[in-house]
């Protein structure tokens, strides 16, 4: 309860700061975007918290399951990333002293929100989660958002990442001589490889280890290509190239953020494709 109150208070402070800030001379689009992200974040959080408070007040209350915490964290992540990403961009633009002060206040409040989000995840550890599920949540979600979407979304962004082709596991099933069980085993290995990639690259980005990023990106590409995850493959390929050429850490962080954002959808597509194949085989 105490944590929820703190969170809402910080949110109110953030809203107030942002309202004052956006009244200054600021590009209208960026201002509107930050306000929209914050409003979305705020209302989702309030919904979740009031939902959880109702659960707690019930006699049959059970502790929030890891899945609920995971979903809360997932829903919080994107608007939070938008806030931080846009605020980072603002910081780089021409601002007055006072505006810089407001931006710093927004970033500081966002840092606190990230910490609280990570604490939500930390509670999963205390529930003794084991196995790939725990690894998935820790590896994918316990990351400080580092995306700066506005800066790097150019007209060519679709070209850079391409369109994800409809995922087709039939060629892989053919290679497995029709053995769906083997295909499932390969998909399991693929998921582990992706989680290892995410964990490794996160560390390499923190240490600006471009060689490490290149090696990890190079290694994951083969699995991504094997399972026809074309969009993730394109991202990994970009990371491989950039970490050898430009070595632009911000751009690499953005690409990494895109990879993490896209992966859950691809994972679901793969699982659905396997289910379809199993049903077909019957």
């Amino acid at each position, binding site marked *: 309860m105490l944590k929820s109150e703190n969170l809402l208070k910080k949110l109110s402070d953030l809203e107030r700061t942002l309202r004052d800030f956006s009244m200054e001379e600021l590009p209208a689009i960026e201002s509107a975007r930050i306000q929209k992200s914050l409003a979305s974040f705020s209302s989702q959080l309030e919904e979740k918290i009031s939902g959880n408070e109702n659960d707690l007040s019930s006699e049959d209350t059970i502790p929030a399951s890891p899945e609920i915490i995971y979903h809360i964290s997932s829903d919080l992540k994107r608007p939070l990333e938008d806030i931080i990403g846009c605020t980072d961009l603002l910081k780089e633009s021409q601002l007055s002293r006072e505006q810089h002060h407001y931006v710093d206040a927004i970033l500081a409040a966002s840092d606190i929100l990230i910490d609280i989000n990570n604490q939500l995840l930390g509670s999963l550890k205390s529930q003794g989660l084991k196995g790939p599920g725990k690894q998935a949540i820790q590896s994918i979600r316990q990351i400080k958002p580092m995306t700066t979407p506005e800066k790097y979304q150019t007209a060519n962004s679709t070209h850079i990442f391409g369109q994800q082709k409809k995922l087709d596991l039939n060629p892989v099933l053919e*290679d*497995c*001589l029709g*053995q769906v069980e*083997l295909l499932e*085993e*390969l998909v399991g*290995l*693929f998921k*582990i*490889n992706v989680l290892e990639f995410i964990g490794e690259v996160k560390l390499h980005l923190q240490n600006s280890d471009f060689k490490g990023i290149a090696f990890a990106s*190079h*290694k994951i*590409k*083969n*699995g991504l*290509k*094997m399972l026809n995850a074309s969009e993730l493959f394109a991202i990994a390929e970009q990371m491989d190239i950039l970490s050898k050429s430009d070595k632009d850490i911000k751009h690499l962080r953005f690409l990494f953020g895109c990879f993490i954002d896209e992966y859950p959808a691809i994972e679901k597509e793969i699982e659905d494709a396997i289910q379809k194949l199993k049903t077909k085989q019957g």
Partner: protein
Amino acid sequence: MNTGKRQLLLAEDDQLLASLLKYRLLKGGYDVHLVHDGKEVKDFLSRTLPDIIISDIMMPYFSGIELIDHVRNELGLKIPIIIISSAGNEENVLSAFELGANDFISKPVSPSELLVRVGRELGKI
């Protein structure tokens, strides 16, 4: 234990690819020994000599290039060696051939194609 089948050493650190290739090679009638890095390759070769070696070029501890050098120059063996290489690794492939590799196959590896290449190399022996 000698099963009468041809002994194949597969050196590949990508577990996803390794599992698929091992399955297909076993189905192809070979005894497959799978190792994941250069250290394990050296250990294996100090105990057993396979009929053919399939190795990724990029591996931890000991690359595929170093493996070829080890097998051809240090051990003085003529065992057929097939290199698995990623796209954009042409320089390494050329080095592999110069050191004595017999063939190479690019990633993503077609298991059917690999079986044909293995059969062809073993047929020459």
